[in-house]
């Protein structure tokens, strides 16, 4: 397998019609296979744009994005990428059970005449169990709470056996207990499923508790890679970013790269385990 899951090579992006206002500027990013990378930043900082570029939903204005060495579109078509959006556009009035929704993931790549294999059915059950949704597998999808539906979406992504899972603001609207469960789920994703995970969030708790690498993004990006996981110093630094975001400062101004202290700073490789 390609050793780097996601690679951004000097990527900039401006939405059409606002060519001078870059949503992302000169972002260079390597996410190693197996990493759990949290991308933290203020609203409007370019976090969702980063995910859209990784998914191939938009193309960079400058630079190049690859996913496992492929174009993002090719990676998506090969089923290498799972995605759980911030705000689901799912129409929950559909007459579907939770299990049917999860089965949508692996069934999408099958030819019309082929049914799910025994292994794929087992994968669906394993995904439901991983997110703690086995007990509600027969429930109508419209009867779920926001947190339950979030877990079902993660199960659908997992059942497709992706190599990379992208989560956009996964704990919005979820209570503290649910956030703790989510952090445990992130650990399980890497340990049991061997999946590379990218989480973007503006919530310090989501990123700090569930990820082992953190990148800060506010149009430009730099990383905070703690040699032995997250240290209090990193958390304090990241928390300062959060405060800066709340008060509306652009991160890059509030926290220029050369002022980083108390932790290693790698402007290029993010999420790559330290040697």
């Amino acid at each position, binding site marked *: 397998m390609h050793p780097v899951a996601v690679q951004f090579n000097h990527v900039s992006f401006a939405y059409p019609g606002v060519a001078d206002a870059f949503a992302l500027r000169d972002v260079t990013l390597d996410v190693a296979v197996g990493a759990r990378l949290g991308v933290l930043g203020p609203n409007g900082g370019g976090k969702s744009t980063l995910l859209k570029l990784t*998914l191939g*939903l938009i193309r960079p204005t400058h630079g190049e994005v690859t996913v496992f060495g492929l174009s993002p*579109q090719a990676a*998506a*078509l090969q*089923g290498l*990428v799972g*995605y*759980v*959006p911030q705000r*689901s*556009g*799912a*129409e929950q*009035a*559909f*007459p*579907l*059970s939770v299990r*049917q*929704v999860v089965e*949508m*993931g692996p*069934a*999408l790549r*099958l030819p*019309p005449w082929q049914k799910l294999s025994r292994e794929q059915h087992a994968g669906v059950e394993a995904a439901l169990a991983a997110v703690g949704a086995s007990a509600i597998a027969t429930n*109508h999808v*419209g009867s779920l709470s926001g947190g339950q539906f979030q877990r079902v*979406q993660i199960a*659908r992504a997992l059942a*497709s056996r992706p190599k990379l899972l*992208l989560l956009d603001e996964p704990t919005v609207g979820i209570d503290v207990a649910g956030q703790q469960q989510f952090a445990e789920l992130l650990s399980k994703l890497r340990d049991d499923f061997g999946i590379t995970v990218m989480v973007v969030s503006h919530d310090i708790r989501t990123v700090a508790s569930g990820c082992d690498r953190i990148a800060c993004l506010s149009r430009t990006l730099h990383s905070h890679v703690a040699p032995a996981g997250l240290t209090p110093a990193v958390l304090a630094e990241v928390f300062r970013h959060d405060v800066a975001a709340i008060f509306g400062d652009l991160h890059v101004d509030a926290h220029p790269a050369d002022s980083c202290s108390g932790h290693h700073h790698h402007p290029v490789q993010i999420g790559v385990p330290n040697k």
Partner: protein
Amino acid sequence: MNTIHYLTDPALRGLFWPGVLTGLAIAIMCSGLSVLVVLKRLAFVGQGISHAAFGGAGVVATLGWMSAAGAVSFGAFGIVFGFCLFAALAIGWLSLRGKTEADTAIGIVLVASMALGAVLLTRASHAHGASRGVSWESFLFGSMDGIGWTDAALGWGSAVVVLLTLWWVRRPLVFWAFDPVVARAMGVREPVMSLILMTLLALATVTAMKLAGVVLATAMLVLPGASALLLSRRSGAVLWLALFIALAGVVGGLVLGFEADWPTGPSIVVVLAGVFALARVRVAIEARQKHPNPRAGALQ
């Protein structure tokens, strides 16, 4: 019983059986689509597409390809279908460009098609004389008159195409309809899914138009699905219920039309609307049984 007489009398069988068979094809074809139409909130889009058929009918009448009774040839069917498809694409294009809201786009296409149809049908009446003129009423509300074996063959052909296509693309189509954001991210091509759905809607509308008319064709694409979704939340049951309700609507409407001497299109819609009303009453009764006195609970 007029119904038995119409369908068994050797002299009348050739007049009524094509209409009955066309109606059954429409019911089967529209039932599957109607569930998607309701869930994707495409009822108004269907209305826009069906009214575009009026413009297509105007072109057909201008070309002199339509008999006084309104019977159509394959060429005429193609023209009307082309108009409906064009309308569907125009609605999609106008609303996807982002500068026109979808309902505004539908409204524009709808009135433009109706105006074009009205002008061309009037001109055709003048040009070809009364014998080649066409009844506006039969276009607007449908009619059994003039439905021949060609229409029945086209109806069943369309039904087979619609059902086979739905079966072939069911997985990406349902994924996209249910969760378009994630479907796009998973590589489902939204424009392709949208084009397929619009094409199937146009085909179903053109076929349903013959029996139910331009104004009422949408009912065939909305009421079976809307009623079925009130009665069940399981996908298999919803599809079977929609099929059963659509067939009941067509058969019941035809019988009602034969017995009461009512026009067929409105009769079918009356039956389908009646089924929807009954389903709604059932839901209300069930809700009342589950929560006998919701006001009391709220005040505690």
